C-alpha cells in the first residue's frame, strides 16, 4: 500500500493545488470587481439555491416518495450537467500528456488520482444538493427516523453514478473528433435535461389550483420509468422501518460499480494519453484571401476589426467543442418553453388570447431566450488558445473585436433561435402574420438584452482567458437574473399594449430606439474598458 500511496498522494495534492490556483485567475489579473469571487463560489450558490427552491416548492405539498424522487432527479441532472460542461477535465486533462504521461505512473494510480480530483467536486455538489432535502425532508409527516441517512446515501449513489457515467463517456474516446461531436451532443442532452426540469418547474409555479399535488398523486407513466422514482419510494418506506433498504443498497452498489468501471476506463485512457494532443491533419480556411471582411461577414460588420471578431467567434463555435458545450445549454430553457408549449398545447397566441395561463409559455420563451444572452456572450471570453490573445489585445481596437463577437452571438446563435421560436408559434397558431410579429417582438427584446449584456460582459478581450472549473456556470448568474428581469418587464409592457395598435406601435418604436441607444452605449463602454486593458 505504501508503495502506491506516495505517488497517489503527490498527484492528488498537485491536481487540487492547481485547481485552486486556477480559481484565482481573476484576482491575479484584476479583470473587475465582479470577477473577484472565484467561479466555484458561484457554482456553490447555484446548487444551494436550486436545491432550496426544489425543497421549498415540494415540502408539505407532496408525499415523501415524490419529494425524494424529484430532489434526487434534480441532483442527478445538476451533477451530470456540471460534469459535462465544466468538470470533465478534472478526469482527463490534456496537459497531463506532456508533463506526466512519460513518468512511471501505474495506470491505476493515475486513474485513482483523477477520480479523487473529480470526487472532490462531485462530493461538494452532492453535499450542496443534499443538505436541504435531507434536513427539511426529515420533518415530513410520512417519513421515519431513518430518512436523513438513507436520503444522504441515495444522493451519494445517484450523484456518483451520474458523474461516473460522464467520466466513462469522456475516457472512452479521449479528445478525438468523435468526442468533439459527442460533446456537442452532450450540450444538447443538457438542453433536453433543462427542458424536462423546466417543464416540472413551470408546473409547480403555475399550480394555483393544486396541479402540483395532483401531478404528484397521479404522475404520468414516464415518471415511473425514472430511476429515482422507485428509489424515492424506497427511501421513504425504509425510513419508516418498511421494505426498501435493499433498493437503496442496490443503488449504492450500482454507484460503486459505475465508479469502478469509469476508473478502469480512465486507466486505459492513460496508456495512450498522447492522443489528447494529437489529431489527424485537417485542412481549413482554404478560401480566405487576405481578409476576413469579405462576403457576408463584411456585409454584416462595420469595420475590419468587427469582421475579425465575428469570424473568430464563428470559427471558434465551429471548431471548439469546449465553447459549444459551455455556452449552447444556455438556450435550453427558452427552447424548452417553446417546445413544451407547442407539444402540450399551452402555446396560445398572445395577440388573440385573453389573460389565460396558456400565454405564459410563449412569453416565457422570449424572456428565457433574452436571458441566455449573458451566458452566451460571457463564454466567448474563454478559450483553450487564450495564450494567443496577446495578438487580439495588441489590435488597434479590441472593442471592435468584441463588438464583432457580440454580433456573431446575436446573428449566428440568437437570431436562429428567435426564428425557431417564430416557427414554433406558426406551428401552434397557423397565423403567419401573428407568428412573424411574435418573432419580431422576440428579436427586439433579445437584441436589446444582448447589447446590455455585452456592455457588462466584455470586461476583457474575447477568447483571452483560460477556463477555470465552475467558470461557465457561475459568475454570470447575477447578470442573467438582471437581464431576465429587464426582459420580463419589457415583455410585460408589450403584453399590456397588445390590444391597442397605437400603443403597441409606440412600444415597438421605443424598443427600436432603446436598441440603438443600448448598442451605442455598449460600444462606448467596451471601447473605454478594453482600451484601458489592452
Amino acid at each position, binding site marked *: 500500500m505504501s508503495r502506491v500511496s*506516495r505517488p497517489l498522494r503527490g498527484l492528488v495534492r498537485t491536481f487540487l493545488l492547481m485547481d485552486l490556483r486556477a480559481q484565482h485567475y481573476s484576482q491575479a489579473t484584476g479583470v473587475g470587481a465582479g470577477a473577484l469571487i472565484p467561479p466555484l463560489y458561484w457554482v456553490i450558490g447555484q446548487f444551494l439555491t436550486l436545491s432550496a427552491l426544489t425543497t421549498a416548492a415540494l415540502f408539505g405539498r407532496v408525499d415523501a416518495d415524490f419529494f425524494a424522487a424529484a430532489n434526487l432527479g434534480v441532483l442527478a441532472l445538476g451533477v451530470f450537467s456540471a460534469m459535462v460542461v465544466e468538470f470533465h477535465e478534472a478526469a482527463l486533462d490534456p496537459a497531463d500528456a*506532456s508533463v506526466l504521461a512519460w513518468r512511471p505512473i501505474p495506470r491505476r494510480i493515475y486513474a485513482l488520482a483523477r477520480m479523487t480530483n473529480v470526487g472532490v467536486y462531485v462530493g461538494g455538489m452532492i453535499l450542496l444538493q443534499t443538505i436541504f432535502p435531507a434536513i427539511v425532508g426529515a420533518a415530513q409527516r410520512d417519513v421515519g427516523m431513518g430518512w436523513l441517512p438513507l436520503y444522504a446515501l441515495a444522493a451519494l449513489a445517484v450523484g456518483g453514478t451520474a458523474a461516473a457515467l460522464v467520466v466513462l463517456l469522456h475516457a472512452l474516446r479521449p479528445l478525438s473528433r468523435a468526442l468533439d461531436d459527442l460533446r456537442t451532443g452532450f450540450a444538447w442532452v443538457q438542453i433536453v435535461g433543462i427542458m424536462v426540469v423546466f417543464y416540472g418547474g413551470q408546473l409547480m409555479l403555475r399550480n394555483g389550483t393544486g396541479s402540483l399535488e395532483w401531478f404528484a398523486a397521479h404522475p404520468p407513466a414516464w415518471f415511473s420509468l425514472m430511476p429515482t422514482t422507485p428509489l424515492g419510494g424506497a427511501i421513504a418506506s425504509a425510513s419508516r422501518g418498511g421494505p426498501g433498504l435493499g433498493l437503496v443498497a442496490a443503488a449504492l452498489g450500482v454507484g460503486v460499480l459505475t465508479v469502478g468501471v469509469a476508473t478502469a476506463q480512465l486507466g486505459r485512457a492513460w*496508456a495512450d494519453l*498522447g492522443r489528447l494532443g*494529437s489529431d489527424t491533419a485537417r485542412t481549413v480556411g482554404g478560401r480566405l484571401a487576405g481578409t476576413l471582411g469579405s462576403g457576408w461577414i463584411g456585409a454584416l460588420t462595420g469595420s475590419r476589426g468587427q469582421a475579425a471578431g465575428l469570424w473568430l467567434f464563428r470559427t471558434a463555435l465551429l471548431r471548439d467543442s469546449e465553447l459549444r458545450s459551455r455556452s449552447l445549454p444556455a438556450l435550453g430553457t427558452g427552447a424548452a418553453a417553446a417546445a413544451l408549449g407547442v407539444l402540450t398545447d399551452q402555446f396560445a397566441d398572445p395577440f388573440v388570447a385573453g389573460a389565460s395561463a396558456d400565454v405564459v409559455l410563449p412569453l416565457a420563451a422570449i424572456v428565457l431566450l433574452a436571458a441566455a444572452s449573458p451566458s452566451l456572450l460571457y463564454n466567448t471570453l474563454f478559450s483553450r488558445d487564450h495564450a494567443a490573445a496577446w495578438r487580439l489585445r495588441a489590435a488597434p481596437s479590441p472593442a471592435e473585436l468584441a463588438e464583432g463577437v457580440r454580433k456573431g452571438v446575436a446573428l449566428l446563435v440568437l437570431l436562429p433561435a428567435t426564428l425557431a421560436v417564430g416557427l414554433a408559434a406558426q406551428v401552434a397558431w397557423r397565423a403567419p402574420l401573428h407568428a412573424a410579429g411574435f418573432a419580431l417582438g422576440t428579436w427586439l427584446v433579445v437584441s436589446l438584452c444582448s447589447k446590455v449584456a455585452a456592455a457588462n460582459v466584455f470586461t476583457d478581450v474575447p477568447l483571452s482567458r483560460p477556463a477555470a472549473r465552475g467558470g461557465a456556470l457561475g459568475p454570470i448568474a447575477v447578470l442573467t437574473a438582471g437581464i431576465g428581469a429587464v426582459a420580463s418587464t419589457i415583455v410585460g409592457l408589450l403584453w399590456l399594449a397588445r390590444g391597442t395598435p397605437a400603443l403597441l406601435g409606440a412600444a415597438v418604436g421605443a424598443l427600436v430606439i432603446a436598441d440603438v441607444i443600448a448598442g451605442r452605449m455598449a460600444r462606448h463602454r467596451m471601447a473605454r474598458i478594453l482600451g484601458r486593458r489592452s
Partner: protein
Amino acid sequence: MADGNAIEARGVHKQYGDVHAVSGVDFVVPWGQVCGYLGPNGAGKSTTLRMLAGILTPTSGTISIAGHALATSPLEARRALGFVPDSGALYGLLSAREHIALISDLYELPPTPTHERGQELLRLFEVADLEDRRVDTLSKGQRQKVALAMGLLHEPRVLLLDEPLSGLDASAARVLKDLLRGLADRGNAVLYSSHILDVVERLCDRAVILSAGRVVADAPTSELVARGADKTLESVFHSLTRAKDVEGLADAFLDRKTSRKKKKSKA
C-alpha cells in the same frame, strides 16, 4: 546497466487516419552515445520521441528503453527515461519547488536529497532564485531551464530531448551541451532532436536523419559529414531530405518586395 542498447526502435509506425506520421522507423542508440535525431519540419521527429517516451502508442513496431519493452514493461522503461518535450513540459500553475516534490513522490525518491539535487540542477542553469515562482510567470528561457532540470531530476539513464536549446541563453546552452557530453561519457545515452545542425555535428556521436516519416540515414556523425559536398552535416542533410536549394531564397523575396514598392511609387 541493462543489457543491449539504450534505445531500440524496430519497425515503428504511427498512423493518424490516412496520415502516416512515421513509417517503419528502425534505429538503435547504444549506451554511452549522444545520438542526433534530425529531419525537416513535419518529418515525424516529435511523434517518434513521444512514442519512445510512451506518451503515444505506435500503430505497429516495437520500442525498448534500457532493455525494457515499452509495450510489456512500461513502468520499468519509463523509470529509466528522462524526457524534455518541445513544449508543455511543466504545469504552469506550479513552481519549480512543487515540481520537484511531485517528481520525488512519483518516483518515490527520498525527499531531502531529491530537493537538494533539484536545487543543484536549478543552480546549474542559473534559475535557483526562481524556485518558488509559478512556472507560467517565467520567461520562455527560464521555463526551458526548469524543464531541463525537472527532466534530469530522477537521474535518468536515457534522455530524450526535443529542441533542448530553444530559448536558452548562450551560457546555459554551453552548460547543457557539456552536461550531455558528460552524461554520455559516463555511460548514459541521449537522443537529441534538433534543427541546429552545427551543434549536432559537434555534440553527437551519431545521427539519425528522418524524412517524410522514414529513416534516410543512420551513421556516425563523422561519417555523415565526410559524405557532404562541403564536408558539413548541413549539406548532407539537404541532399538526403531533398530540401530545395535554399540559398538565395531570402534575397529573391526581398528583391521582389523592393521592386513592388518601386512600381507602386512610380504609379
